[in-house]
């Protein structure tokens, strides 16, 4: 599987006003980086478009994008499912 880190972080930075341009902390909650109800929708839509995936209903919950780490895992899982 390709490393999606660069694309993933670019995608986050497009929507999160507090995400640093250098490094993204994968453990910190995304709300601390500026995620709210509007940007959450925008981030998920952008992830779907960028990676050609679709979040199933059971992943459209806050736990999926609580941290950048959780969200990246979800994206990788969906990419893997798609590839298999």
């Amino acid at each position: 599987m390709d490393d999606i880190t660069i694309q993933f972080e670019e995608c986050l930075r497009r929507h999160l006003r507090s995400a640093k341009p250098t490094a993204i902390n994968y453990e910190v909650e995304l709300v601390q980086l500026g995620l709210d109800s509007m940007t959450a929708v925008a981030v998920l839509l952008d992830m779907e478009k960028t990676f050609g995936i679709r979040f199933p209903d059971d992943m459209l919950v806050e736990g999926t994008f609580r941290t950048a780490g959780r969200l990246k895992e979800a994206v990788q899982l969906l990419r893997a499912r798609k590839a298999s």
Partner: protein
Amino acid sequence: MTRPLPDQSLGPEWTILELLARGIVDDPERQLARELLTSDTLDWGELLEQALRHKMLPMLAHHVVSAELRFDLPTSIYLHLESALEWNRWQINLFRTETARVAQSLAENGIPFVVTKGMTFESTLYAGLGTRHMNDIDFMIAPRDREKVLNLTKELGFRPFYEWAKDARREEISSRLNPDHLPKLAREVDQPGIRMIQIDVANSLTWTRSPFDVPVEEALENRVEQPVPGLPGVSLPCFQPTYQFLFTVLHLFREAWLQKFVDFGTDVSLMKFGDVIRLFDQHHNDLVDGELLRTMDVHHVTDSVAWVLRHMDETFHTHAVKSLALEKHGDEKRLAAQMSSSGYVRASDQSMRERLQSKGRGSSRSAAPAHSGS
């Protein structure tokens, strides 16, 4: 208390709609409406456009028909208004039958619920004349019953429906992440002029992550039955006046403050303020006896309710804030501090009246106007 006639600084077309929204109740108001509607200089294009934007076309139509203005209006416009009124009445009748069908299923399955908004207001606040516009049928349930109701409505032929939105996938994700409502549900019907019936099932009196709330379970314990015009023996549960008023005002607050409603151009409207004015007038004695104020205080919604009522009073010359002694509440800066994320509308110095009249709302238009700084 009498209300002064609206000032006409925003034009005769807007004055007519303001009069209709707050309700024409005395001779000076009737006379003013007649003079404006029969004026040679009235811009019918502007009046019809604003009536549509504010969901008031059936109300305008009913007024010109009941005021017997048949030969004082351009013929084509009169005939169009007459048919728009008839069509609205036809749709309301269909909605009544459908509401009763869904309500029966919910009741048979032991699910506490109420019918809200247009379906209850049409017969109680608008005298069952067919003048209240409705897009859909609104219900309120408790969050614990979401899955049960989703399954029941599927059995009744409804399915999640997002195609009404400009970006269906965005709406679908937003709906999942903001579970204050079930997904919008629709059922295709084979009826003249009506392709589908939509129902909107809420499970909150406010919205997901709202800084304040009135527990829906508490509101659902305070229900009354309301007869359905044209369906003898059928009644529907609705909120008793205190909770009916709270929900309606908080709903208007929500649509005024959440950016997504501005983006869709469905935020504040004359009709929604008209609902609040009529509710307050009709249940005045119930609402000023103290229970409403106690409930607002317990659930920390006094500021948000006062904010709506102050804008209503300033716009329509009503007296709700004084009647409820809310003069010290509703500070906009305090509310804005509670709701400062990008999901909320930012304050501007535009008055509510200017915001209502503005056609520049919605994502496809210029920058969205916001609240008055008052």
